[in-house]
């Protein structure tokens, strides 16, 4: 019986996380088009309707999905067939696997058992995220090479060089966080962020690691190939970059992978730098304010508030991705490389050094 219960819990956690992220991806594609439209002073998608309802065009992702599914799955003659077909899978699978270690709520107790709201609380934690996100580059490289034509090859080359360069800063920028919270386990990092600094300010990553946060955010945008770093698919220069030769559902898989990165990236920023599921001044018994005030709340309300807090943070950072995309123009390629190696890398090393000295002085 107990084994069956554990299995049900494991399946439920995977299902909740996957369904949440995939639904979020679908809604994001709509939010992106709508957000772009409003920033450019137009209305955006608003025609698809079900039973006369348009609801601001929310049915457009559904229409897109049906269109992608029913289009002819065309494979050009000049491609390396096997690798060409593998590339979209290589793009999507590692992105899906990263969500396994991200905690989406505090541990809950059901029927005398403590269940962490996290698919797997691995000891290596954040390293697992880097291991998986490091593999996403294969999707892009393989697509660029297997398409066997010039623009995809250029896109693939740009992308792989960019991703390798920014992976270095991405990894180094979170070392400060690991040093402050003394763990690479994400559950531990989130738990530590519930404490108060000097009894007033929540000890969130962004408070103790402001430079680390900025570096992480910039590197994350470069890793997710988002504007201003979306050179792999710079449409004014190289058509659509690495996925020029892809159509129908294979193209859709690349798009899904891209938006999945946004969701995972938002989850990671929220978890590492904005307290994850922590709600400011909310302890497990209710609100405890610095002045000595406290408001008692039932456990279920606290749990909902905490999961809601993570959700709100993720929505904000996903929106920030869209906001930046339609505000800032694309860099030139040499500027991206110079920024990565000559600005980001020294600054992230400086951040580690400064954090070390600060920790020594505090201790």
């Amino acid at each position, binding site marked *: 019986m107990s084994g069956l219960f554990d299995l049900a819990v494991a399946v439920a956690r995977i299902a909740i996380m996957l369904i949440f992220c995939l639904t979020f991806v679908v809604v994001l594609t709509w939010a992106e088009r709508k957000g772009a439209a409003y920033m450019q002073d137009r209305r955006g998608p608003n025609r698809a309707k079900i039973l006369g309802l348009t609801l601001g065009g929310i049915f457009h992702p559904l229409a897109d999905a049906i269109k992608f599914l029913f289009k002819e799955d065309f494979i050009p003659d000049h491609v390396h067939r096997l690798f060409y077909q593998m590339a979209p899978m290589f793009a999507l699978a590692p992105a899906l696997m990263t969500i396994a270690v991200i905690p989406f709520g505090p541990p809950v107790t059901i029927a005398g058992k403590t269940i962490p709201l996290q698919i797997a609380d691995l*000891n290596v934690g954040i*390293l*697992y995220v880097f291991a998986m996100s*490091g593999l996403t*580059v294969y999707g892009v490289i393989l697509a660029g090479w297997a398409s066997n034509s010039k623009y995809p090859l250029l896109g693939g080359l740009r992308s792989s060089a960019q991703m*390798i360069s920014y*992976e270095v800063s991405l990894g180094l920028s979170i070392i400060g966080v690991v040093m402050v919270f003394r763990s690479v386990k994400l559950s531990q990092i989130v738990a530590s962020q519930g404490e108060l600094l000097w009894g007033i300010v929540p000890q969130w990553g962004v408070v103790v690691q402001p430079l680390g946060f900025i570096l992480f955010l910039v590197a994350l945008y470069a890793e997710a190939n988002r504007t201003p770093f979306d050179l792999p698919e710079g449409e004014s220069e190289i058509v659509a970059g690495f996925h020029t030769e892809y159509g129908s559902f294979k193209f859709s898989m690349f798009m899904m992978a891209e938006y999945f990165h946004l969701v995972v990236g938002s989850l990671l920023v929220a978890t590492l730098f904005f307290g994850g599921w922590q709600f400011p001044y909310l302890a497990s018994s209710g609100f405890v304010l610095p002045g000595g005030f406290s408001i008692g709340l039932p456990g279920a309300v606290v749990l909902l508030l905490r999961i809601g807090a993570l959700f709100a943070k993720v929505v904000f950072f996903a929106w920030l991705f869209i906001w930046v995309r339609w505000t800032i123009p694309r860099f030139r390629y040499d500027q991206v490389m110079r920024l990565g190696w000559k600005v980001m890398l020294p600054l992230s090393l400086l951040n580690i050094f400064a954090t070390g000295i600060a920790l020594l002085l505090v201790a």
Partner: protein
Amino acid sequence: MEPALFIVFGAIAVGGAIMVVTRRHPMASALYLILTLFAVAGLFVLRQAHFLAAIQVIVYAGAVVVLFVFVIMLINVPEDKLPVERVTGMRFLGVVVAGLLILESALIVRRSGMAGTPAADSGSVEAVGRALFTDYLLAFELTSVLLLAAVIGAIALAKKKI
């Protein structure tokens, strides 16, 4: 459960390795190499070496093989112009050396027996970190000097004027 998983990961690792050396297309070899590296990471996890498994994937699958693929992509030899490697003396020598290696490991296992199950947290980030910065500090620092030399060497070779 564990012996079954060992057989699965071991079979994938060995099968992948055989495919790496027998495939004609270098891109196929590279992808099989990723598979082998992944399976070896799985074997590390079975021995509780979680940190090592993560580093294996980050460094080898996530960086080293990316560079291999990068080079294959840049050179981009058309499929009909791939060279056919002839069987030479070196290949037979390779088979002999591989056989000797297998024999050697079999002898070691026979002499000292199978190792028991390691402690659950013996390969955790904390345990490996502590060992690296206390017992093996000299080796650790020497390795970093070696890596620094390699980085400087690479820059000096790649750029004529800095």
